[in-house]
């Protein structure tokens, strides 16, 4: 039986592609499967081509995977537009619309002979059984459920929920359409096709995307103010909070622009609240000046950048990891601000909570670098035990600190007690202009140097945060992979595959990207002879940043390419094999595992 199955589907707007993906995903989560759903669209506001790929497994899913096990093409023109996102190989079963009149042995797939190709009269079945072409996606759900024995009861329950309110007639037609799909699969068996194994436990999984998770994590962390401006692909964060934050005494302010969004956050933070803004690359560019203000005024603030293709408008709907330089360095003046990156939807929770804690602890802006992939993909994942997350609040002045209050007092840690309007005797002047410990403006070079030193010293403890790095594989492995954000899962999976082939490979996943925790990398690289920093940016931005701060092994190279070109574990594995082969050719130790 299968324990891991990838399904891809594409069609035109109106084919209900997205709702088919969502229905299947929900049903699988209810059944207790782990799953991941990524959607992809053409550039049209409405209509146009759309697709999803869904990977379901009996163990946690780390990445969307590579080649599809099942490809569903409602329309070949649309399907082919998604090229690399829906890769078909000789292990793929292709189900496609019979009305396309394409023969099973003449599919428009260059150089690929799929494992099986079945032309199904989907449209005709939809019209005859569901009474409308809109039933096509329900037929497909039936086909997939029928061929792989997947979640039939939960899908039917989902149909009831979705169509029940549209009347008994609509519901019955859709139930019949689903059943027809199942029966079609049974009547047209594909030789030696294995069904999907049942889930390990029939425990419903949590189900959401990275953007909604960001909003929920913010509320958990005690965020009561969000200021922002709509921008793809981050807007769902603001939309989630617009629904939820009021319940917790908070406010969302949709501002006139990106600058006002972060400006309002700085104001609310000054007034004592935990605050967050969220945006994507162009918005981060606009917010940059006020990030600097938050740094010098030492005000806690979380800024989330759900990265997309850049520069400028770039590709708003596709994932890229090309804003690391911006996050780390886009500031005038000697500024260091922490940059954190989540590795999955589930991991977004802890990462965002950590960002709030860091912001409050060190009175600094903290940037969360999510990406479109994580922000907008859905995952079905294990429940998170929220009780293991501690929350940090800013250091507030006690009575002794108010006699008199010295806002920017240069303490041993560099962190000074922070008052807020309304607090008696805590009055001070916050400013973007350089100031002395009392907050009075100054142009004195000695004071400037000392305040710079104080502001940077605050962050020294971050160098010791080994808990913000994940490692996988044998500690003495000579081959290393480094990846961050949504590519972490791809690389960890590739490592597991290499391990299965007997190659000793280890992986480092930094969740704290900046400041660079030099010692953590030094320790990790000690055994490393060669390896790859795998990232979705043209320049290989993490690789470049590491070379600024760390003596990386000579054999460590970037494996980097522009966004909108997904990586698969297979191709990372292929590169690892090449590196291992090079070792053999050089008569170097191959690094056989165990």
């Amino acid at each position: 039986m299968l324990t891991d199955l990838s399904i891809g589907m594409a069609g035109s707007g109106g084919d209900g592609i997205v709702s088919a993906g969502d229905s299947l995903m929900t049903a699988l989560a209810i059944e207790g499967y782990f799953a991941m759903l990524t959607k992809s669209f053409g550039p049209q506001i409405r209509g146009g081509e759309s697709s999803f790929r869904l990977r379901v497994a009996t163990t946690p899913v780390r990445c969307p995977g590579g080649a599809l096990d099942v490809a569903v093409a409602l329309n070949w023109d649309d399907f082919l537009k998604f090229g690399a996102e829906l890769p078909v190989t000789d292990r793929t079963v292709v189900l496609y619309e019979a009305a396309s009149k394409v023969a099973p042995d003449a599919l428009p797939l260059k150089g690929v002979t799929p494992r099986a190709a079945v032309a199904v009269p989907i449209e005709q079945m939809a019209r005859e059984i569901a009474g409308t072409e809109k039933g096509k996606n329900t037929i497909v759900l039936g086909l997939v459920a029928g061929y792989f024995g997947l979640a039939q009861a939960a899908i039917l329950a989902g149909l009831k929920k979705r169509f029940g309110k549209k009347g008994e007639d609509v519901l019955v037609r859709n139930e019949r359409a689903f059943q027809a799909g199942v029966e079609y699969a049974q009547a047209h068996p594909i030789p030696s096709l294995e069904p999907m194994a049942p889930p390990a436990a029939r425990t419903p999984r949590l189900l959401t995307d990275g953007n909604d998770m960001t909003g929920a994590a913010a509320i958990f962390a005690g965020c009561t103010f969000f200021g922002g401006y709509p921008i793809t692909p981050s807007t769902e964060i603001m939309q989630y909070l617009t629904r939820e934050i009021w319940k917790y005494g908070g406010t969302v302010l949709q501002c006139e622009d990106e600058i006002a969004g972060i400006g309002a956050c700085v104001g609310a933070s000054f007034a004592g609240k935990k605050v967050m803004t969220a945006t994507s690359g162009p918005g981060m560019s606009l917010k940059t000046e006020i990030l600097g203000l938050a740094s010098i005024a030492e005000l806690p603030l979380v800024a989330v950048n759900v990265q997309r293709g850049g520069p400028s408008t770039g590709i708003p709907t596709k994932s890229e990891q090309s804003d690391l330089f911006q996050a780390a360095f886009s500031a005038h003046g000697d500024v260091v601000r922490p940059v954190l990156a989540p590795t999955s939807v589930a991991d977004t929770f802890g990462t965002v909570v950590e960002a709030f804690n860091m912001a409050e602890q060190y009175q600094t802006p903290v940037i969360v670098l999510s990406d479109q992939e994580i922000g907008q993909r859905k995952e079905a994942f294990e429940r998170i035990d929220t009780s293991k997350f501690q929350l940090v609040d800013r250091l507030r002045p006690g009575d002794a600190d108010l006699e008199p209050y010295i806002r920017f007092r240069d303490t041993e840690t560099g962190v000074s007690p922070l008052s807020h309007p309304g607090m008696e005797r805590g009055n001070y002047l916050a400013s973007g202009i350089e100031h002395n410990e009392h907050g009075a403006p100054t142009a004195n070079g000695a004071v400037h140097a000392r305040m710079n030193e104080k502001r940077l010293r605050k962050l020294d403890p971050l160098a010791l945060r080994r808990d913000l790095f994940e490692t996988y594989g044998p500690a003495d492995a000579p081959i290393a992979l480094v990846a961050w954000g949504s590519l972490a899962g791809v690389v960890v999976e590739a490592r597991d595959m290499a391990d299965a082939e007997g190659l000793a490979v280890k992986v480092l996943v930094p969740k704290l990207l900046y400041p660079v925790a030099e010692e953590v990398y030094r320790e990790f690289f000690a055994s490393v002879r060669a390896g790859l920093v795998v990232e979705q940016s043209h320049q290989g931005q993490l690789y470049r940043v590491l070379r600024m701060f760390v003596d990386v092994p000579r054999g460590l190279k970037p494996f980097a390419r522009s966004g909108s070109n997904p990586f698969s574990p297979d191709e990372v594995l292929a590169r690892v094999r090449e590196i291992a082969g090079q070792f053999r050719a050089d008569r170097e130790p191959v690094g056989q595992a165990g």
Partner: protein
Amino acid sequence: MTTIEAYQAKDYKSDLKPIWCPGCGDFGVVQAIYRALANVGRPPHEIAFVSGIGCSSRIPGYTTVYGFNSVHGRALPIAQGIKLANPELLVLVAGGDGDGFSIGGGHVAHAIRRNMDLTYIIMDNQIYGLTKGQLSPTSPRGLKTVTSGYGSMEDPVNPLLYVLGYGGRFVAQGSPADMAGLAQMIEEAIRFPGFAFVNVQSPCVTYGQPDQQLKFQKQRMVSLDSLGHDAGDRLKAMEMAQAYGDKIYTGVFYREPTPAPAYEYYVRDRQQVLAGEAVDRSRILDGFAPPA
């Protein structure tokens, strides 16, 4: 409970020595603000005073309240964040004509239409003083400056019409040449329960034109009260505001007769209505359980 008589103007004055040139109009403005705050009587720690960048934006530092001397043009968004974070605070915003109507001009319209209970004071000197004498958004057409050596080719912004045009609910103009009148106007603006705008003709003694200085200003000033102006009539206010750049009308151009509830009122209402739907924060992720 603090009584109104408990505070005097000096209680709002800080020890910082202003960087302004001797004779700068802004000295009069800060004095008027001290007086207005003393009359309103809120303790300094319950007041937040936000500014941007420019000579006049140094002003929060010369008060004892919670000040925020921020970055160029962004005082209004920051002030709105403060107000929403704690609606009980008295929030003042100030800056120059460049800060408010050039680099920060895009924020003014939205602060007006959102209508939080803020008082926005512009010290309008028709020149960039801090950077030593460049053209400002309110400089008159034809003005020769170091960035308009052959004379300005642009019409100036009319701050009064700008704010009235976007629906400003309280719009006034004053001058440090009439300190008592200015203090009273600022006090009235603070007491107005919504977004209140005061344009102050505050001359630049170093880079300003001779005919803008206080003693000439006095000759050009005409009080709206003396003309029997009806401050409840927006169209009439807009008509009077057209004289900007020519005559200096002082007083309240427009005051919404029945002030609408401020933004923060709706925020509080929404929070109260929805508070009952909150779950324990530790259970926030339950919202992601698939619908069984």
